[in-house]
């Protein structure tokens, strides 16, 4: 569970996150929506302790991300927007490195790797160097590396970016399934994805919370036929 209280973060004069108050519960997939520059990536970077908030606090499983960063991040995983892999490593070496950083080794690592490799369909490239992978495989390997220790909270920035329709479908199914027992926060621009996997939608614009509801209620409250229409209705200036 993540609790955000009065969170603010500015870069110079620009308020990237402006007084946010949100609670993310276990067992839900949350779609984080907003136009470009709305503050989604900044919010996610604040959630994983990459940035320090100017004011307010973030509690991950009752641990403060600033005061108790390491303990708060132990059950949290983050996959940044740009596929962050070490090109000279093989997929196996990369996932093992991520596991070791999380204190996971031995049989626990092997079991998790086997099951994740199957679920994310990366078995065929396990001994391949990361630099030789296609964009779709890179994305899925990054997810495997982040989830190797089976974290309770997962933060994914554009997880299906660069995937083909079949891969998108399988990654969405995987996220939906993973979110049944854990907290999964997904930032996306693909609105069909929201309906396919999200239990809850959080829309932010200019760092402020615009709405926090379910996909169904979002459409209903804005008299929209789909999420994209609702998104436009809530984020268009005029």
């Amino acid at each position, binding site marked *: 569970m993540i609790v955000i209280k009065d969170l603010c973060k500015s870069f110079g004069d620009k308020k990237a996150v402006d007084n946010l108050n949100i609670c993310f519960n276990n067992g839900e997939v949350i779609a984080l929506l907003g136009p470009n520059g709305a503050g989604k990536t900044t919010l996610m970077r604040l959630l994983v302790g990459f940035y320090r908030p100017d004011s307010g606090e973030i509690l991950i499983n009752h641990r403060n991300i600033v005061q108790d960063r*390491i303990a708060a*991040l132990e059950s*949290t995983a983050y996959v*940044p927007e740009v596929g*962050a*892999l*070490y*090109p*000279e490593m093989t997929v196996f070496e990369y996932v093992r490195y991520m596991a070791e*950083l999380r204190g996971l080794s031995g049989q626990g690592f092997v079991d998790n790797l086997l099951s994740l490799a199957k679920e994310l369909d990366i078995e065929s490239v396990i001994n391949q160097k990361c630099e030789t992978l296609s964009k779709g495989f890179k994305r899925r390997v990054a997810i495997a590396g982040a989830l190797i220790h089976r974290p309770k909270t997962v933060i994914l920035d554009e997880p299906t970016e660069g995937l083909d329709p079949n891969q998108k479908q399988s990654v969405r199914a995987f996220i939906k399934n993973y979110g049944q027992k854990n907290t999964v926060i997904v930032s996306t621009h693909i609105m069909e994805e929201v309906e396919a996997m999200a239990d809850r939608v959080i829309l932010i614009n200019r760092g402020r919370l615009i709405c926090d509801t379910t996909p169904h209620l979002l459409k209903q409250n804005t008299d929209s036929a789909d999420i994209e229409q609702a998104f436009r209705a809530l984020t268009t200036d005029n």
Partner: protein
Amino acid sequence: MLAHTLTIFKKEFNGYFRSRLGWFIMTIYVLLVIPAVFYATDFLSRAEETLPQFFLTQNNVLLLLIPAITMKLWTDERRQNTLELLLSQPVSLTAMVLGKFLAAWALCGLLLVSVSPLWLLTAQQTAVDNAGVLINFGACWLMAGALCSICAAVSALTSHAVTSFIVSLLVCFLLSSVNFDVFLQKAHVSNEVIMRSSQVFNFERHFQNIIAGQLTIANLFYYLSFIVLALWFNVAAVAYKRS
């Protein structure tokens, strides 16, 4: 923290050889050192001068190579977009900095070990003070550690490997060549405290002292405190860059 440091150390150290940078640096090192020593001393006729000559060249050779060893430590994390990933792990900045520094320092150790046959060859030709040679190897490694620690901090502050290399080279050059005594003499400063302080902070002097057989607590303390200070600066640099 120890386990995280070890994990990062292993990744970085293996990375030198995965990317071939480690092999390249080792080759350059051997190519620079061996001919220089053999030509300078005429090994076959004056073998007793080989090892002292070897140790005297080490400060210049390491000064050239250490910026290459450390240039990618942090700049590559930025280039590959893995810095965000690394900094979102439940790992302290100290463990990250320490792991990377130790990998660079271990590679320096490997460089020195790679030319150890020179010691054996010399010992076959002439009498060698083995304890002295061991201490001199230790002095080279200690100096390499000090240079690695400051160059790693430079890597954390710069965005590109080439920039990191050039700035590190400049820093190393300044560290080893700036002789405050000369400035003080030119400025006609004769205050004993200032003169003593100038000697205490002279990077090169401590190395030359150990090579000359004066292994003292002061020399050791100088290098170790230099390393600790530079690592602390490295942690601050990463934290600053993150914010």
